[in-house]
Structures are given as C-alpha cells and as structure tokens.
C-alpha cells in the first residue's frame, strides 16, 4: 500500500494539465485565480513531498501499477521536491510582479491564453523534475519549448515574433540532438526507464562494449540540453527572447525554463549514465571550456549593452556558464554548487527583471541607460530590488550570490586540474559583474530629478499605487537574503537529495 503523499507528483502534473484546459473556457480574471491557486497547491504538495522524503527516503511510483521495465515511472526525492517547490515559488512571484504589465501589454481576449501557457509551462517543469523515464522527459521538453515560445510571442510585435522564431529554431536543434541521444541509448540498453538504463550502462562499461556509441549518445544528450539552456555559444536567441517579451515571461524564461533543462541534465548524469562514467568520458572538460568562455563573453556582451533588459539577459549567459562550470568540475562539491547556483540565479534574475520593469515604467518605458538616470528615486521599491539583485550578482555577502561564488571556489580548490582556470574565470567575471551592475546601480541612483521635471512619462510611482508589485519585490529580496543567510540547511538538503540520486 502506497502512502498518499507518493501520489503527489502525479497529482501535480495532472492538476496542471486539467487547469490549463479549463483556463481556455475561462475569462482572463478567473484564469488568473486558477493559475495562482494552482501554483500554490502544487507548491504545497511539493513541499509536503520534500518533508516526506526527508523522513522516508526516495520512492519510485509506478503508473497504473505496471512494473518496472514496461510501465512508466515517476520518482520522488528530496531534491525533486525541493526543486519543484522552489520553481512554484519563483513562478508565483514572477507572475504577481508582472501582472500589471501583462494587463497593459496583452490584449484582453488573450489574457486567458497566457495563463494556459503558464500552466502548461509549470506542468512540463514539474514533469521534467519528477519523471523517471527518458522518453517522457523528451515529450515534456517539447511541451516546455512550445509553451515557452507562446510566452515569448504573447506580446505581439515584430521583435517578439522574430525572437520566438529564433528561440524555436535553437530549441528544436537542441531537442533533435537530445532525441537522437535518447534513441541511441535505447538502442544500446533496450530500456527507457532511468534506473534500468543505468544498470545496463554499468554492465556495458564494465565489459567495455559499445564504448563509442555510448560516448556519442552522451555527447548528443549533453549538447542538446546545453543548446536548450543557452550555454555559450548557443545563446544567440536569448537576449531577444528575454529582452522583448512581457516581463513575467522574461522572468519565468530566465529563471525557470533553462533551469528545468539543467536539472534534467543533472538527473541524466546521476541517474541514467552514472556520475563516474560521465566523469571518465572527459565530456565534462568540453562543457568546462564552454562554461568558462560563456562566463567571460556573457559578461563582456552585457557590458556593451545600453539597454537595461538586454544587459540583464546577457548576464544570464554568464550565470548559466557558472552552473555548467559547477557541473563540469566533476565533483560532488561542484554539483552542490551548481544546484545552489540554480536556486540563487533563479531568485536573483527574476527579481532583476521585475525590478527593471519598475524602473523603465518610471522613465517613459525607455530602457536606455541615459533615460534611466535617477529612476530609483522615481520608483523607490524597484530601485531597491535592482540594487539588491545587483549586489547578489556581484557576490556581496548577505546575498545568495556570495554563497554560490564561495561554493564554486571551494569546489575548485578540491579539483586540482581545473583549479587555476576556474579561479581566474571567477575572478574576472566578478570584476566584470561589478563593473556593469554597479554602473547601472550608480546611474539609477544619480539624483537628477530636475532634468526630467515636466517631461512626459517621467513620473514618480508611489508605493501605494503598486501594492502587489511592492510586496513581490520585498518577498524577492527576502528570498535572496534567506538564501544568503540560511545557506547551511539548504546545502544539506541539496547534498541529501544528490546522495539519494545515486
């Protein structure tokens, strides 16, 4: 007899699917409430699951009681539960922070469509986190791509449609590679369930059979997911997609969509191929190089931008580089750092996007730096949010960014071969981050109020006019500080979750 809690992953996925279908019949406002309640319910279920797994250990849930090699499976563990909870939290905050902008930018008749896409996005993210079947993972990767594309183009102008096309092209290349990787792996092992594949892979490695096809399959899967999560040099679609879509979409895309793929990659490394096999294959050295280049070039591109949202987007390229750097170190400490960076970046980047929109709103919706001068005085809470996010990105203690940088350094020290390049890259990137983020913070806090007095659009937005937005930004800052101050229990949780993986 299963415990009732073990049904929660399946319930979450089904609930998301049902509510996204139901939203098509609802009006915008009702769909909004359905979406909010859904995110809260799924988040609560995931949280319960996390605590359940902390007590009882991980479990696999066979769909329809069909046993292992034939049926489809879902797996619940500490890391899965925690990740799903965190995704729900960030999604809730991103939605509430961008609500006002959404009403302005998306036509009334299309409001419910937006919520359908968000529900589908949540569904695919939850499924990617929980699934124990590689082909199911592929199907949800595609659902994720389609809903992400919809999220980008819901705001209709030439830029967003072009960004959506570019996003689709890169994503499809990525999923094509991932699919081929999965097919070759299926060919080699005869299984699609993660645990069964791992057993067969271990036998193959022990006997030394099919080493080349196995390597190629791994390379295809890693490369496919790297393209989809915008690892350098596959990031060309990213600034347009994040920079011109409506703000909730940008926050969700930057903080959740790419993270879903990275989490799937971590799952594949641990649960499908086996950590040692991936480590011995030297593929991680390749991703290490790209991650390092991505960190530096992402930061340089961000420095050259004079558009605040594109700058924040380019900084995502660098941050994704950090995550891959952690994975590529090939140690447990590196992996813990990478998972913590997923959390830290998700919390920070969505806050930066949400704050940036508050600043541009107070500056006649201009995103150019010269118009943003002093905007933090016109919209105080947005200024605070942006400053806090920037400090976190640079790695100032008290904020989450500091902990992730610290973890990367510690992980690098333990890895003799990659220590020096990691240190150098981290040092350069911290300086570059400090240059472009602090430059922006200084600009938005430069007191030039008189310059804009009387100019249209440059208005002071008071806190009482934007209560939902203010609460969101405060919660974001609190979340960031919480990640920075209470990192110890979170790291323990991540460590326990990773140990449950293998």
């Amino acid at each position, binding site marked *: 007899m299963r415990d009732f809690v073990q049904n929660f992953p399946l319930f979450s996925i089904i609930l998301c699917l049902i509510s996204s279908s139901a939203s098509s019949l609802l009006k915008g406002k009702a769909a909004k409430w359905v979406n909010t309640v859904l995110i809260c319910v799924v988040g609560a279920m995931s949280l319960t699951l996390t605590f359940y797994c902390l007590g009882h250990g991980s479990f696999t849930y066979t769909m329809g009681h069909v046993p292992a090699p034939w049926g489809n499976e879902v797996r619940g563990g500490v890391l899965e539960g925690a990740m799903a909870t965190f995704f729900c939290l960030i999604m809730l905050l991103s939605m509430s922070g961008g609500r006002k902008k959404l009403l302005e930018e998306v036509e009334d008749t299309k409001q419910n469509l937006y919520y359908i896409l968000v529900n589908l996005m949540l569904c695919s993210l939850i499924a990617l986190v929980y699934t124990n079947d590689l082909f199911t993972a592929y199907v949800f990767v595609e659902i994720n791509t389609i809903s992400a594309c919809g999220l980008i183009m819901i705001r209709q102008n030439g830029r967003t*449609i072009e960004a959506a096309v570019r996003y689709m092209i890169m994503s*499809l290349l990525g999923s094509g590679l991932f699919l081929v990787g999965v097919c070759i792996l299926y060919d080699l092992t005869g299984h699609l369930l993660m645990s069964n594949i791992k057993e067969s892979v271990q036998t193959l490695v022990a006997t030394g059979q099919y080493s080349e096809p196995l390597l190629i399959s791994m390379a295809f899967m890693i490369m496919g997911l790297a393209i989809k999560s915008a690892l350098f040099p596959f990031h060309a679609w990213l600034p347009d997609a994040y920079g011109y879509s409506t703000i909730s979409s940008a926050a969700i895309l930057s903080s959740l969509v790419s993270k879903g793929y990275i989490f799937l990659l971590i799952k594949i490394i641990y649960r499908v191929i086996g950590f040692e096999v991936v480590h011995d294959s030297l593929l991680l050295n390749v991703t290490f190089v790209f991650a390092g280049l991505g960190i530096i070039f992402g930061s340089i591109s961000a420095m050259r931008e004079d558009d605040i949202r594109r700058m924040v987007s380019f900084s995502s390229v660098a941050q994704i580089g950090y995550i891959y750097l952690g994975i590529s170190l090939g140690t447990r400490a590196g992996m813990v750092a990478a998972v913590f960076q997923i959390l830290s970046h998700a919390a920070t980047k969505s806050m930066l996007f949400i704050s940036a929109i508050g600043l541009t709103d107070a500056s006649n919706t201009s995103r150019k730096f010269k118009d943003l001068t002093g905007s933090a005085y016109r919209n105080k809470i947005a200024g605070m949010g942006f400053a806090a996010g920037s400090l976190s990105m640079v790695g100032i203690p008290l904020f989450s960014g500091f902990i992730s940088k610290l973890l990367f350094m510690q992980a690098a020290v333990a890895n003799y071969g990659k220590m020096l390049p990691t240190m150098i890259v981290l040092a350069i990137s911290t300086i570059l981050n400090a240059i472009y983020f602090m430059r922006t913070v200084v600009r938005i806090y430069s007191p030039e109020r008189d310059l804009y007095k009387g100019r249209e659009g440059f208005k002071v937005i008071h806190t009482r006019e934007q209560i939902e937005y203010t609460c969101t930004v405060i919660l974001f800052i609190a979340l960031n500080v919480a990640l920075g101050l209470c990192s110890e229990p979170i790291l323990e949780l991540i460590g326990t979750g990773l140990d449950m993986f293998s």
Partner: protein
Amino acid sequence: MNTNLLNNYAEAVSLIIFAIGFTNLLLHKNLIKKIIGLNIMDTAVYLFLALKGYIKGHVAPIVIGGELQPDSYINPIPSGLVLTGIVVSVSVTALMLSLTIRLYKRYHTLDLDEISLRLKKEGL
C-alpha cells in the same frame, strides 16, 4: 570498425540524413527551408527507431489469424516512440509555420536575416 559500419549501414544513413536536416535547420536563411530541415531531421530519427525495432522475418505486432506467439512479432516499442515523435513534430511544425506566416505578413519576406536587419532599422 569497417565491418560494423557495413553491418549497420542503414543506421549510418539515418544519422547522415539527420545531419543534413540539422544543418538545414541551423544554416538556412529561408524560414520554409528551415522547417523542411526540421522535418528531415525528425524523420531521420524515426527511420533510426524503426530500424532498431525491426527484426528480420517478423511481422508487425497486430494479431491476425490468431497468431499470439511473441516471437513472431517485431519490437513494438520503437513504433510507439515513432508515433509519439510524429505527434510532437507535427505540433512543432504547425507552430513554426504559423510564426512564419505572421512574420511574412509583417515583413513580406521569408529571409530571417533580412527581418532582423529591418527590426534593427525600426529600432524597436
């Protein structure tokens, strides 16, 4: 090595077709040709899967004439995967085509680079 390649020439062909589709999707400027590339790429994967499921001398897993021996059928799982893949690829193609139509109506060209150039000029 060479004998392996000869024995598995069909798989090699399917991967070459995959590469052709992949390059088409990546490098072509024309959006419709990109979508054709996407379909070639996906079809190559189905070919690969169908090859992997096929067992010489066996028939499709459909019960005809009371034959119930599992030994007489090919592996049905890859066929199932192909079906799922086709569903995914059809929906993705439809989405891409609809996006292409929108872009064409706005800019009267299918050249993605040209569209990007015009967007830069518009300064949106």
